[in-house]
């Protein structure tokens, strides 16, 4: 019961286009109830009908997760590549660009080619003009132009969305595990283990690729933040303003909600069993509280 409520809360906080992609937990629970209610033999037809419906729904849900996940993953791969090539040109010195070699096309460049040509090779043709201008700005160590800021924002948002996709995968997996446990309990069958094993092999659970992209984003942003630390003179008074700005965004809200939900889900359970997870370490105080307060206060204009 609690998981259902938490799942609903999570879904409400999630990005709009994701809302109907989560597990249909309530419906599955209803089916389990039907199955167990008609367990006796005179009503075997109904019982087996409900069972069949349950199993079919499970399969359909897994298919749905796979489809959504793969589609999102493809999107992320595209955006990640576009962003990362761009950001390398933004935040690197010319010699290091030469050395680092962003992608295959960069390798093909001569070592002593001029910066402009290098950028052209690094970045796709459509971004050529913008990249040129921004990279020249970076060389001059100007404060960030709006273009740069927007690129950073996009990287952070991309990172956020990817993490939310991981969260999506985790929540759905948890939901599946729970509903299977209920099913086994009610019917005495052994659906859980084999089914979960199959789930573990599903694409939507194989999140290593996304994790890798997430880590790459983190590394990129680390470098960015390091570089910008030189500029950050009087940034003390800007923290609350910054928090407010961040809280307005859907992705941030969703992330905070996800963390909170995860903490709740693992805080304590009446049915700890062999397959339960331990309680989560308490979330960091300042960071999360700041975020939570702002989120709770609702969007505020700067």
């Amino acid at each position: 019961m609690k998981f259902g409520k938490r799942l609903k809360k999570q879904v409400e906080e999630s990005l709009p286009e994701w809302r109907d992609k989560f597990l249909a937990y309530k419906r599955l629970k209803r089916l389990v109830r039907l199955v167990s209610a008609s367990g006796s033999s005179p009503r075997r037809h109904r019982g087996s009908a409900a069972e069949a419906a349950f199993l079919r729904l499970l399969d359909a849900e897994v298919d749905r997760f796979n489809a959504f996940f793969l589609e999102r993953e493809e999107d992320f791969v595209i955006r990640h590549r576009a962003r990362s090539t761009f950001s390398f040109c933004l935040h690197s010195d010319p010699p290091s660009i030469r050395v680092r070699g962003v992608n295959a096309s960069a390798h093909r460049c001569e070592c002593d080619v001029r910066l402009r040509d290098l950028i052209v090779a690094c970045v796709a043709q459509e971004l050529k003009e913008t990249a040129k201008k921004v990279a020249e700005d970076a060389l001059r160590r100007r404060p960030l132009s709006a273009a740069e800021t927007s690129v950073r924002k996009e990287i952070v948002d991309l990172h956020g969305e990817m993490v939310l996709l991981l969260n999506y995968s985790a929540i759905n997996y948890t939901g599946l595990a729970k509903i299977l446990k209920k099913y086994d309990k009610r019917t005495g069958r052994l659906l859980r283990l084999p089914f979960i094993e199959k789930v573990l092999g599903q694409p939507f659970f194989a999140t290593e690729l996304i994790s890798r992209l997430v880590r790459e984003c983190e590394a990129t942003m680390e470098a960015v933040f390091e570089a910008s630390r030189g500029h950050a003179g009087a940034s003390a008074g800007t923290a609350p303003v910054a928090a407010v700005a961040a809280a307005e965004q859907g992705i941030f809200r969703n992330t905070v909600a996800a963390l909170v939900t995860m903490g709740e889900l693992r805080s304590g359970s009446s049915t700890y069993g062999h397959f339960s997870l331990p309680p989560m370490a308490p979330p960091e105080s300042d960071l999360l509280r700041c975020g939570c307060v702002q989120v709770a206060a609702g969007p505020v204009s700067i």
Partner: protein
Amino acid sequence: MSSSLPILPNPLKGSFPRPCNPQHIPMSRQLPDDSMPLRNDIHQSASLHPRAGVIGAPYSGYSASPLDSVSNHDSQSMVAPYISQSSSFEAFQSLSDNTPGTHTEAAWFTSSMDVSPLYTDNIAAPDDNRIQSIRPAMTSDETAKHNDWWADIMNDDWKDILDATATDSHSKAMIQTSNSATSLPAVNQSASSHSMEICPVASPPNSSNASVAKQRMRWTPELHECFVDAVNQLGGSEKATPKGVLKLMKVDGLTIYHVKSHLQKYRSARYKPDLSEGTSEKRTAAEELVLDLKTSMDLTEALRLQMEVQKRLHEQLEIQRKLQLRIEEQGKYLQMMFEKQSQSSTEKVQDPSSRDTAAKPSSILNQSANKDSGATMDPNRTGDSVKTAELGERSSGLGVKQKLVEIESDTEGATDDGSKISQEKPRKLQDS
């Protein structure tokens, strides 16, 4: 049944009412009459292939009908589970949504399973609606099939609930799959290599269904890199055509569908940043330098905060995932041990050597189980302990079993393991 066969090849001239490629499914008109007995037979036999062999033969001559490879794959994969389900029922409401033509389409697809290998080399120009049209057809096919069978069994309540379930899940599945299918009717791919094999992604089957082989594509960064190279070679994302890119990439198993949808995504991802940067650059020109500095720092701080939170969520998710995997591993191991135990104890009831061999792995198991589970559990006494008490009772005669029960209670045996034990015990007690 056999009388219907000669009729089937004839009506290929009729135009198909659905909004898809008019070349497809030209045999719509006559089939509705024959489809009912056809499908009932298919259903009752509960296995498709003998039927498909019989029915498919007349269609093999119509290679002109452009059943392209992807929709074949899809239909092949989609059809199997639906047809071979022995006890299934579908949304009766969906019937009203579909034209009669869909019955025929479905029937044709069910029978064309055997025929599909003939078409794997065709990469006809796909109609995206095509794929969409396949899936509702399946539902209505199933519905008609089971209509008779279920009429007297189901009462109203059941019908409502289960229909709602089936409708929603299927319509959702349909919508989802049709939406995604227009962008990725795809093939599963191993992560690191460019050369792919077409391996269907099997979603977890239950015991009575055949596995659903829905083929999805996994666009890894390497594959995407290859794609981007090909696109750049062809002169950019605007100039590149799917066919050209497909040829350049030279990747096995990649179809033009995949490339087309991917190219579409690629293009829109390119144009968005161009637009946003164009407008923001105009803004920059008008702003003061000082203001620039301040706002950019604020925003950086905001970004930093957001990044921190996101990183934290990511960490937690990683930890959680590792734990879950380990727990499942352990559960599997336990299960395996139980099965081994049950086998060895049914074979040799009073063999001391078996007890010894059983004792060692079980003690190892005990140690590892305690180590792993030590940090994790607060025991739930009521449910589990009752079960373990019962089990303890029943196993009092068999020493080996008792050891296992102890292990179970130590590791707070999950209900599924417990139920397995309780199921096995009566059997073994009967044997011994």
